[in-house]
């Protein structure tokens, strides 16, 4: 299972790779990273449908996470990848917009990795 993580903070990569150390080692998960919305779209264009889950930050310079979300949901049908939105401000407005745009889930920073792992496991079992 491949997860694409989108965030303008580069250290997110190290953090995720460590947090999912065992899963990566056991070949349960493959992590890919993009540092902007634009980069994420490019990645999806090249390897369409490869990522089953996209985790995206909302607050990024340039294309925001919400723009990316609406882009993905409009462009990639049958079956669209799951998109979970992450934001530093866990507010109603962003939540509602994200839900309206078809976000599959909504996470707030700081990320609770145990909760995230549970959510990923559930995707596996569906």
């Amino acid at each position, binding site marked *: 299972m491949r997860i694409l993580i989108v965030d303008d903070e580069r250290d997110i990569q190290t953090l995720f790779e460590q*947090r999912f150390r065992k899963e990566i080692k056991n070949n349960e998960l493959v992590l890919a990273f993009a540092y902007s919305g634009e980069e994420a779209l490019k990645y999806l264009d090249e390897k369409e449908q490869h990522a089953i889950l996209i985790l995206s930050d909302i*607050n990024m*310079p340039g294309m925001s996470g919400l723009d990316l979300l609406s882009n993905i949901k409009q462009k990639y049908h049958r079956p669209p990848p799951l998109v979970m939105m992450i934001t530093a401000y866990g507010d109603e407005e962003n939540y509602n917009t994200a839900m309206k745009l078809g976000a599959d889930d909504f996470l707030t920073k700081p990320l609770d990795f145990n909760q995230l792992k549970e959510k990923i496991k559930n995707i596996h079992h569906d």
Partner: protein
Amino acid sequence: MPKYTEQEQEVINVHNVFWEALANRDIDLRFSCCSENVTFIGTGLHEKAANKAEYRIMNEKGVNQFPEPFQIDFIWTNISMFHKQAVVTCEVIWKQSINGKISSELVRSTTLLNYEEDAWKIVHVHGSVPDYRLAEGEYMTTEKILLRNRELEQKVFERTQELGKSLAELKATQSQLIQSEKMASLGELTAGIAHEIQNPLNFVNNFSEVNVELVAELKLELEKGDIAEAIAIADDIAINEGKILQHGKRADSIVKGMLQHSRSSNGINEPTDINALADEYLRLSYHGLRAKDKSFNADFKTEFDASMPKINIIPQDIGRVLLNLINNAFYVVAERQKNLSGLEETYKPSVTIITKNLGDRIEISVMDNGNGIPEEIRNKIFQPFFTTKPTGEGTGLGLSLSYDIVKAHGGELKVESLSGEGTTFVITLPNLNIR
């Protein structure tokens, strides 16, 4: 230079003796100044004299009625000389004690003198009361004029004091406003700072948690005897410790920057990395606006001159200037996007910061692709309190403060704007290290 020519002085002397003689009740002296054909018209309706005898009788009556000497003060005297003729006009204040009361009166007289044989002689006297009229038929006496003057002086004094007080109040209000503008921009900053600080703190917490787990795993591997895996885990722990330290320092420097901003203008000049400063305030502004308005989004770019030297400035002051300019720029691009017409669907709000090293000076430009500044307000935008923003959204102090700060640094703040294309504010600062 003497006030009068010799001839004029002679005329004045005769004129003055004539009047002072009346004040001193010396009728003989008075009439020795007059020609045999002197005539007189006075202030009263029937005060007329057709010759010297009539005039003298009139004067003698007056002296009998009021034997006390007068005091006379000449207020002004004016003289015109003709051939063997002179006209003297003057205003005098008569002070006279009547029944123990001082009464004073302002009188104007016009006196005509002829040069007869070997002396100047008075040939006609015309007395009148200056027309400082209050209402029809009512004249002001000198007392009243003096009193009125004193009242006016008092009023002027009171007004001046009131104005002084209002001015002091205005100054206090203004400095209060400037202070609150500083606080408001600090408030905006704080929102940006909260976001900027949250990310490194998340990293510190997350990497610390990972390390706790990794240490447990490390122990397990050591018990199992898998040295290679144990070393791999130990390497990761070391990397994570590095990350914790790095993000801790990042949070630290953000807090220090915030303190610097709030300390405001008692700052000192220090060699400053202009690119880093511009980058810092660009991010703070962006995240500050994002924190206020979730729907806000704009592209921001930097085109930094890599050869930028360190410039001697008060960093938090120039930081405030940058913050003002960048906030203004983000505001206009966001406004433009909100009010897009169907034709402009491809509009992408964007703010760019460009730095240039020009040798003896440097340039920082803040460029936006908003709607531009309308021609008719372009010369007003630097005025304090000028704003086109809705009440409560702008104090209109941003640009005027920015202008003052840049001026205080020996630099210039200029604006170029094209309607419908955007606006660029250019800060020029001297590089004093190059002479």
